[in-house]
């Protein structure tokens, strides 16, 4: 198998070390970059990140990465967004105001509301498959429904179309969308790079879809 070029985009937010090490385990040519030329030539890109929606979009903007990523998505090439990196795939976010996202997957990002547990949602929680999603051809291939993955967030995806929902999770009396997809573009609200062996399997599945 030839080594795939996987560009992990550094746009100024979050812990990239663990993510890079997770991809490294599978012997790919993964690297951290903030250059748009690296995006164009990559076999897949990863958008990591922890933080506020606007700071994420600003981080992409000052590095002139918004259009290169949108073009990349239009060519239906593989993208994996994680946490904030997944949220900004949506059309808009409502964290500290209303901000435009990359608009790759229609929908918005809103705060956890009316729930009975602590926010931020920090810790291990289960992902389920909605009836409409087929995990077998996705990054969740051979992951069991009810598997525990690691979450750290206060905001959630609200995709416009049901067909973009890949996984759901229950928290504090609410069911929310915990993973989104469209073509080969995936977004996880949880952190695969911090979700133990199941998380590594998800990363391996993503690599196999490239």
């Amino acid at each position, binding site marked *: 198998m030839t080594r795939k070029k996987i560009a992990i985009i550094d746009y100024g937010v*979050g*812990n*990239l*070390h*663990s993510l890079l*090490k*997770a991809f490294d385990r599978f012997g790919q040519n993964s690297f951290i970059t903030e250059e748009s030329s690296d995006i164009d030539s990559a076999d897949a890109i990863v958008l990591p990140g*922890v*933080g*506020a929606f606007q700071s994420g979009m600003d981080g992409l903007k000052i590095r002139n990465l918004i259009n290169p990523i949108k073009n990349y998505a239009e060519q239906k090439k593989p993208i994996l967004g994680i946490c904030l990196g997944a949220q900004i795939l949506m059309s808009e976010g409502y964290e500290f105001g209303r901000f435009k996202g990359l608009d790759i997957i229609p929908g918005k990002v809103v705060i956890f509301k009316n729930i009975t*547990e*602590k926010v*931020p949602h*920090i*810790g*291990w*929680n*289960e992902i389920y498959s909605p009836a409409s999603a087929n995990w077998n051809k996705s990054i969740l291939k051979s992951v069991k429904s009810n598997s*525990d993955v*690691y979450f*750290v967030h206060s905001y959630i995806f609200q995709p416009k179309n049901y067909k973009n929902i890949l996984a759901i999770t*229950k928290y504090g009396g609410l069911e929310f969308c915990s993973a989104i997809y469209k073509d080969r573009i995936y977004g996880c609200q949880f952190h695969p*790079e*911090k*979700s*133990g*062996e199941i*998380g*590594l399997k998800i990363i391996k599945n993503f690599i196999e879809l490239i």
Partner: protein
Amino acid sequence: MKKVRIIPRLDIKGPNVVKGIHCEGLRVVGNPKDLAYRYYRDGADEILFMDIVASLYQRNFDFNILRSISERIFIPITVGGGIRSINDINNALRSGADKVAINTYAIKHPEFLGTAARKFGSQCIVLSIEAKRTPSGWWEAYTDGGREHTGINAIEWARRAIKLGIGEILVTSIDNDGTRDGFDNQLIRSISSFSPVPVVIHGGAGSKNSFLNACQTHLPEGLSAASVFHYKELSIKDLKKYLYKNNIPVRI
């Protein structure tokens, strides 16, 4: 559903993991990389590294050690010991940590907690409290790895830090640490009862029963232990199975 996190704690001194009783009388237990990997494989939900002399010697956590440990460990990592600047937090996060635990510096400069939470988000700022019961019954906060007393009421300090924006509290009972007599259930109750942020308790775990007992007293978000895991008296897998059987929600 909230699941109780089981968190092995590695006290670091130089290149070694050490363990003492009441935070004193240290013995070398092993090397951090091997131990952390063993716990990762055994089903730990998170790993806590504390450099127990960094504050005392005005040193920083050894981020190179952290970088090499986190290469093989794909669960959340919290580091503490000697964190005293934004730059320290940046280095920790860039070396694979997800959260930093701050004690000594925060006691002297409480406003630092707010600055750090605004910069990195509350979710990554953990207030570490070392609490010791006074003869009159209240808990006093200690610093520098349980060496220095402060005269500050630990419970009041927790309340204040929550207002400043911290995202989690790690409470170590100095009285129970290393004794294996069980967690300080009263201490758990006095903090968990009002805290809107997750609470992790450390100090005194001696058996499966210590964990069950603490969970039944007041389900904390996390329970942390060192000796029982270091000396292989308890495997994390067995412990979690035991808790699960007793209707405590854990990640299996």
